[in-house]
């Protein structure tokens, strides 16, 4: 229960950065933190107390392995989610660089003011 609350706290910090910060890089950092929190929560859900990684080693009994292993399903979906997070960050950084080139500033409110 307590680890879940840690993940929730990270999620809320990321949301706070996205909403309340004005610097565009800070907003990208907020998105990154939100991604970390979600990935962490998914893995925490699949953890079994004293569990072993879901990789069979030679000469291990299959039934014993199935009774002790942690959950492989959220892990498999998180692998792709992390890589997609990288793609999203690259896209956001590309947008930030483009905005900087156009307006010469990273401040969101400045950009709003200059837009007209």
């Amino acid at each position, binding site marked *: 229960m307590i680890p879940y609350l840690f993940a929730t706290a990270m999620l809320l910090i990321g949301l706070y950065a996205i909403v309340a910060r004005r610097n565009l890089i800070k907003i990208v950092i907020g998105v990154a933190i939100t991604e970390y929190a979600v990935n962490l929560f998914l893995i925490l859900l699949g953890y079994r107390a004293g569990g072993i990684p879901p*990789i*069979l080693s030679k000469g291990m009994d299959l039934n014993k392995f199935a009774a002790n292993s942690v959950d492989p399903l959220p892990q498999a979906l998180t*692998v792709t989610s*992390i*890589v997609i997070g990288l793609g999203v960050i*690259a896209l956001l950084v*590309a947008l930030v*660089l483009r905005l900087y*080139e156009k307006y*010469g500033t990273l401040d969101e409110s400045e950009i709003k003011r200059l837009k007209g």
Partner: protein
Amino acid sequence: MKGMSLIVRTIARVVTTFIILYSAYIVVYGHITPGGGFPGGVILALGIMLLMLAFGKDLPLRKLPEGRASVLDCLGALGFWAIALLGFTAGYFFLNFLGKGEPFRLVSAGTMPLSNIFIGIKVGVSLFAVLTALSVYRRFYPPGEEPPEED
């Protein structure tokens, strides 16, 4: 980007071969040890990134021009699709149609190593493409000042 000093360059020369070897190991052994196409591809992109940091952007672009990079990228995606569609020959979408072999051998688990290789190529080359885009297309100019005309 001009590249770095002689020390970094020489070490990059020595190390890059082994980084590529390690990424291939991570990809090929994805179904036996931890790893797989996604981390292997990212390691491949990081190896090329090392070259880009040490020698400047021109050398990696000479080794892997943009056109060939996009061809490889599409090849990876199409290969994965082809494996998915070839499943129809034996039954349904994404059926593991190849012979399974026995566990703990390198050639086992049917289509999985092939899928891993295609995903690795795709992820590595597309991340390489976005890194070169980030380093090549952008040079920063003060607002209001037009970039000089060049290639």
